[in-house]
C-alpha cells in the first residue's frame, strides 16, 4: 500500500499573530514557520503504518512557495521515503490545492491520502473533503484512530457528539485530528539522511489546473479586544461579584 501525505507550511502555532497595518493580511516576515500541526500527525500515522509492515511507501507532498519545501524535508526526516513539491507563488484556496492534489493522485496512484483536518492559518477545514469529492473516494475526517485492515480502514472520528466509527474501502482520504498519535521528533542522523532523499519539483502551472482565486480577501483586521478585568482576592469576593455585579449566577 502506498500512502501520500499532504503537508502545509504555516505560521508556527506558538507565534502571536500580528495583523498588517494596511489590512492586507498578517505579518509573516521574520516569523517562525512550521508544519501545520495536524499534518505532523498525518505523517506520523503514515510512517507508523509503514513500520507495521502495512504500507510499502510514504510520499510527502506540499503545495506552496520555495520555502514550503522545508515541510517536506521534515517529513522525510521522520520517515517519509520521498517528497513532491508543487511550486506555486502566493497562497491558494483549498479548492485549487485539492485540484492539484487530484492531479498528483492520478500520477502517483496512492491507496491512501492523509492530511491534517484543518490548517491553523486559514482554519478552512476543506481540502481533504474536496479532494475526496473530486476523486469520488470515501472520506474519514477528524480521525483519532485508524486500524488498517485488508483493503479497508476502520477509522474513529471525533464528532461534536462524541466518537463515530466508520469503515472505508481503499482508496480513501483520511484527515487527521491532533489526538491520532504523538508525532516523533527527527533525530540528527535522520535529518542528515533526509537530505539525500529525493524531492521532485513540479511547477503548478505544468499540471493544467485552474488555480485562479474565486475569493477576494477585502480586508484583514484585528478582532475587538477584551477589556482587562480585575483580580479578586478570594472566592467569596468572586461569587459576590458574579452574583451582584455581573449578575450571571
Amino acid at each position, binding site marked *: 500500500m502506498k500512502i501520500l501525505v499532504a503537508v502545509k507550511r504555516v505560521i508556527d502555532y506558538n507565534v*502571536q499573530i500580528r495583523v498588517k497595518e494596511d489590512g492586507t493580511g498578517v505579518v509573516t516576515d521574520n516569523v517562525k514557520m512550521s508544519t501545520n500541526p495536524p499534518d505532523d500527525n498525518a505523517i506520523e500515522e503514515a510512517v507508523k503504518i509503514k513500520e507495521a509492515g502495512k504500507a510499502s511507501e510514504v510520499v510527502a507532498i506540499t503545495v506552496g512557495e520555495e520555502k514550503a519545501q522545508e515541510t517536506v524535508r521534515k517529513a522525510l526526516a521522520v520517515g517519509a521515503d520521498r517528497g513532491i513539491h508543487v511550486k506555486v507563488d502566493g497562497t491558494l484556496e483549498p479548492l485549487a490545492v485539492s485540484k492539484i492534489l487530484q492531479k498528483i493522485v492520478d500520477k502517483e496512484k496512492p491507496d491512501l491520502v492523509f492530511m491534517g483536518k484543518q490548517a491553523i492559518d486559514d482554519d478552512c477545514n476543506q481540502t481533504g473533503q474536496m479532494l475526496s*469529492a473530486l476523486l469520488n473516494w470515501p472520506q474519514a475526517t477528524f480521525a483519532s484512530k485508524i486500524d488498517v485492515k485488508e483493503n479497508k480502514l476502520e477509522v474513529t472520528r471525533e464528532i461534536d457528539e462524541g466518537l463515530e466509527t*466508520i*469503515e472505508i474501502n481503499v482508496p480513501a482520504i483520511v484527515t487527521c*485530528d491532533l489526538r491520532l498519535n504523538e508525532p516523533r521528533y527527527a533525530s540528527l542522523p535522520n535529518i542528515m539522511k533526509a537530505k539525500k532523499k529525493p524531492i521532485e519539483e513540479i511547477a503548478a502551472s505544468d499540471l493544467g489546473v485552474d488555480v485562479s482565486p474565486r475569493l477576494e480577501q477585502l480586508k484583514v483586521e484585528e478582532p475587538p479586544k477584551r477589556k482587562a478585568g480585575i483580580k479578586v482576592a478570594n472566592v467569596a469576593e468572586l461569587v459576590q461579584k458574579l*452574583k451582584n455585579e455581573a449578575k450571571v449566577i
Partner: protein
Amino acid sequence: MAVLLIAEHNNKELRPFTLNAATAASQIDSDVHAVIIGQNSADAAKQLSELPVVKKVLSVEGAHYENFTAENFAPVIVKLAENYSHIVCSANTFGKNLMPRIAAHLDTSQVSDIIKVISPDTFLRPIYAGNAFATIKSNDAKRCVTIRPTSFDPCESTGGSAPIEKVDASEEFSNTKFIKREEIKSDRPELGTARIVVSGGRGMQSGDNFKLITEIADKLGAAIGASRAAVDAGYISNDHQVGQTGKVVVPDLYIAVGISGAIQHLAGMKESKVIVAINKDGEAPIFSVADYGLEADLFEALPQFMEELNKLNTIQK
C-alpha cells in the same frame, strides 16, 4: 435565487444549531428553503417547516441517510443546488465534514465558519484561531457557506407552516460504511448552547479531580468544558474540548479552571460574556481575557466556591 439551508438533525428532531444556521441563511436572502436528509425523519421535517424563516422544506428519505454520511448526502444537495444561489449549514463537525464535498462537486470555493453576513457575497470570518478577522468576497456564481452557530441567534422555532416537498433519494455510496456512534449522554446542557460553562485544564491533574468541576456545574446548571491538554491527557472525553480544533462556545459565564489560556483555547471561548479564570499562576495568559481572575490553588478554591454557592439563596438557571 433562494438560499438552501441544510438541516442538521438526529432523525427524530432538529439539532439546535439548525436554528442559528437558519438565521444566517435568512440574512443572505429572505427566501430560505431547507433540505432535510435522513431516515424516518418526518418529525424533524415537520419541526423544520415550523420555522418562520423557512419558506419550503425539501425532505429526502433513505436507509443510507440514517447516519449522515457525507458521501451519501453530497450528491442530493449537488442535484438540488442548480435552483439556489447559496448552500448554507453550520460549521460544526456535521457541516465541516459535508460542505466541502458539495463545494468541490459544484466547483465553488467554500467560505468556512463565517461570523457575519455583510452582503450576499461578502462575509466576515475569523482566521488564525480568531486572532484576525478577514472580510471575504466570493466571486463564485454559487456560494457554499458554513456559519459559526454561536455568532448567530437561533431563529424562532414556531409559527411557520412551510410546505414539505418530497425529493428523490440518490444512490448509495458503497465504499463508506457506518459502524457505530458513541454519544456521551448527559443530563447537563449542551456545551455549545449552555448559558454557563465550567472548564478544566491540565491543572486538574486527573480525571477524578474533574468531579470538583462536575459538582459546581451541576449546581449552576452548567455544561462542562475542557482544554485540549485535559482531553489529550485522558481526563475527559473529546466532546468537551473548547478551542480552535474543538468547539466554540459563547456562554454568559465561562469559568476556566486550571487552564493556562493558550491562543488555541482562547479561540473557543474569548467571546463569552463574562470570563472567570482560576489559576495559581498569576502570569497565565488566561488572566488577560478574564473579567474576574482568582489567583489560587484550584484544589482549595473549588471546594470554597461550592461552599459559597451553597450559601446563596437563589441561583439563576
